[in-house]
């Protein structure tokens, strides 16, 4: 099974060989490193940029304007903030030109805590991103989803932000990417750059196949009837774990992986909340004007009389940063035990 980093690499390779992807670029994205999380290693059209985020986003906009497809990387979402008005602009260009000038471009960036990344390698961006009208925003929780969502992002005619949960970059899934070798070691020997001199190294790509995961479609990862929990990325996996644990005690939790932050799959969420009457939204971006609050607001607004408990949002604390010490980080972003506690409260709540 591929890791998420390997899955992203294979998607980029598939993109450059089959989908007209011309440029993959960002800081340390090209040889020899292939990205700080190795997600671009071996990709032929990858290259290193100056250390200039605004240059990177501007370049991506220009390439898209010229009609070529590109994937640009911001090394950490923590450093995307100085590009905010360019992101706004990329999102509004098609609209501002009354449908004349589309910008099909992908920006990918690692997000979230979970690797003890301290104040500047732990930021989330999903709530910020949800306010960028004109963009599509996706966040995978598994390598296969990363592969399929990235292929969809590459061919999408709109700007797409691909948020990579950095804590999952080396995590394997339990589904094969179509065409990847069965043996992990074999895959590694084919597409992981060697330690040491890489000057003559080239990836030997497996014959990976087309696998599009439509943007805007969520996935039910655990079916259940008593409570719905909705999340994405790293926290989705924690929700799965808690749901499994509670299932072993006889409880029934439905877990929904959003996969797309915007456009989002309201129909899947709605059907589930109507069934369970109870819902918890989990994400690690900060809690004030959090995207989960928007979904919660919508659940209250549209499903008020079907709710059997007050809906909850479990999000990152409204803090200026995430401190390095484990005590600090764990107190700042949702932990597994908090997900469990919220779900137990919801299970126990009687109207």
């Amino acid at each position: 099974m591929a890791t998420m980093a390997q899955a992203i690499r294979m998607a980029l390779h598939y993109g450059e060989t089959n989908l007209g992807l011309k440029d993959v670029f960002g800081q340390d994205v090209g040889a020899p490193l292939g990205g700080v999380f190795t997600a671009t290693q071996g990709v032929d059209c990858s290259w290193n940029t100056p250390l200039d985020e605004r240059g990177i986003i501007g370049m991506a906009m220009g390439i898209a304007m010229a009609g070529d497809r590109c994937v640009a990387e911001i090394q950490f979402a923590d450093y995307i903030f100085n590009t905010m008005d360019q992101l706004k602009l990329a999102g509004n260009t098609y609209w501002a030109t009354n449908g004349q000038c589309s910008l099909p471009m992908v920006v990918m960036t690692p997000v979230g805590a979970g690797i003890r990344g301290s104040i500047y390698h732990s930021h989330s961006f999903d709530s910020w991103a949800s306010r960028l009208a004109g963009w599509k925003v996706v966040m995978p929780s598994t390598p296969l989803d990363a592969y399929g969502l990235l292929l969809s992002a590459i061919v999408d005619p709109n700007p797409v932000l691909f948020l990579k949960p950095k804590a999952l970059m080396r995590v394997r899934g339990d589904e094969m990417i179509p065409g990847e070798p069965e043996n992990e070691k074999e895959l590694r020997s084919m597409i992981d750059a060697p330690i040491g001199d890489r000057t003559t190294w080239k990836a030997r790509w497996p014959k990976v196949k087309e696998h599009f995961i439509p943007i805007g479609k969520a996935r039910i990862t655990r079916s259940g009837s008593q409570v719905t929990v909705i999340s994405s990325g790293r926290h989705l996996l924690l929700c799965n774990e808690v749901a499994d644990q509670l299932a072993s005690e006889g409880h029934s939790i439905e877990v929904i992986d959003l996969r797309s932050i915007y456009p989002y799959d309201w129909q899947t969420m709605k059907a589930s909340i109507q069934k369970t009457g109870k819902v918890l939204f989990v994400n690690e971006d900060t809690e004030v004007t959090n995207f989960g609050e928007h979904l919660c607001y919508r659940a209250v607004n549209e499903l008020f009389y079907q709710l059997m408990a007050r809906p909850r949002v479990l999000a990152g604390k409204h803090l200026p940063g995430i401190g390095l010490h484990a005590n600090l980080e764990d107190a700042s972003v949702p932990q597994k035990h908090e997900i469990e506690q919220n779900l137990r409260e919801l299970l126990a709540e009687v109207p």
Partner: protein
Amino acid sequence: MSNRILSNPASKNGPTKSNKSSSARASTNSKPNLKANSMPNPKSISKPNAKSSSVINSFGGLDKALLLQMHDCMVKSRVLEERLIKIFRAGEAYFWIGGPGEEAWAVPMGLLAKKGQGLAYDFLHLHYRCTPTLVAMGLEMSDAIRLMMNRATDPSTGGRNFSGHYCFPKWNVAPVTSPIEIQYPVACGTAHAQKRAGQGGISIVSGGDAGTAEGDFASCLVWASRKGQELPLLITVQNNLWGISTCYDGQHGESQIADRAKAFGIRSRVINGNDPVESYLALQEEMAYIRKTGKPSFIEAQVSRLYGHSSGTGANFVPGEIDCLKDFEKAMVTAGHLTETSAREIWTKYEEEAVACANAVRTEPAPTAESVWDHIYFNNENADWRKF
């Protein structure tokens, strides 16, 4: 050629060298003075005798038909801008911003750009003072007026954006946007794609002097000049010595903006953008250099700002600024390329056209309220969460 241009008296005097006293006076006013028009104009002092080189050098050898075409476009653009200001004054538009006074620089740019759509043609990343460039490329007056009056028929934005914020994909004219300087790194992107395509197209970017303080300007210099990865990009700055109400000395330490390009090994020059001939020859030479070498080049053009910053500062005529069109027309009459009567006829023709266009555009439909949801995503894929 470049010697001739650089030895032009107006070009030799950098804005900082000669206008110290006047701009120091202006900058003692610590409060932003929104009546920029009423401030002492540094250039009227810095270049009192700045005669167009066209007067003294037989128009650089440019042929009469081209000179007449340039004059014609300059008049058309000036008349159009002045009509737009009148439309604003009549309360028929919310805002005006444009480029009267920049015609001598901007018209040649429009004439020289390789016009068309796609990588083989030139991309233009302009700012909000580039009406003359668009006029030279074939902009219809009514299309500028539609943008000004935010009609649904406005081909650039459908009534969504300010005057001067053009977008013409059929001519590779990238959308003009409000955030200052953002076009500079974007231009690197189109130039990068053009370099890959190798079909001779280049990218051209323009903006004002004050905007060069933004990091995006530095980004452009960095990305365009990387060794072995140079971009076919013509980087231009129109230096009118003002950023709204802040004078040049208020925000620059460098003698010439063009010097900044030199630090990156980018070939660069300062020209008198009030002279259409000098502008034409400089643009022609730099475009040819870029097409031949695939490398960037930089032009700082010294220009006038004839009606102040925008309608926000009154859009009143500023006496004392060099009027490039007046000077050029005079030189054309002196040379016998035009008579006073034939020149007058050109002005009248365009004035009548502008009035007729405004009258017609006034009756055209406004954008509808429902249309706010149009074109958020490509092909009108739904972007309204209420309908997810």
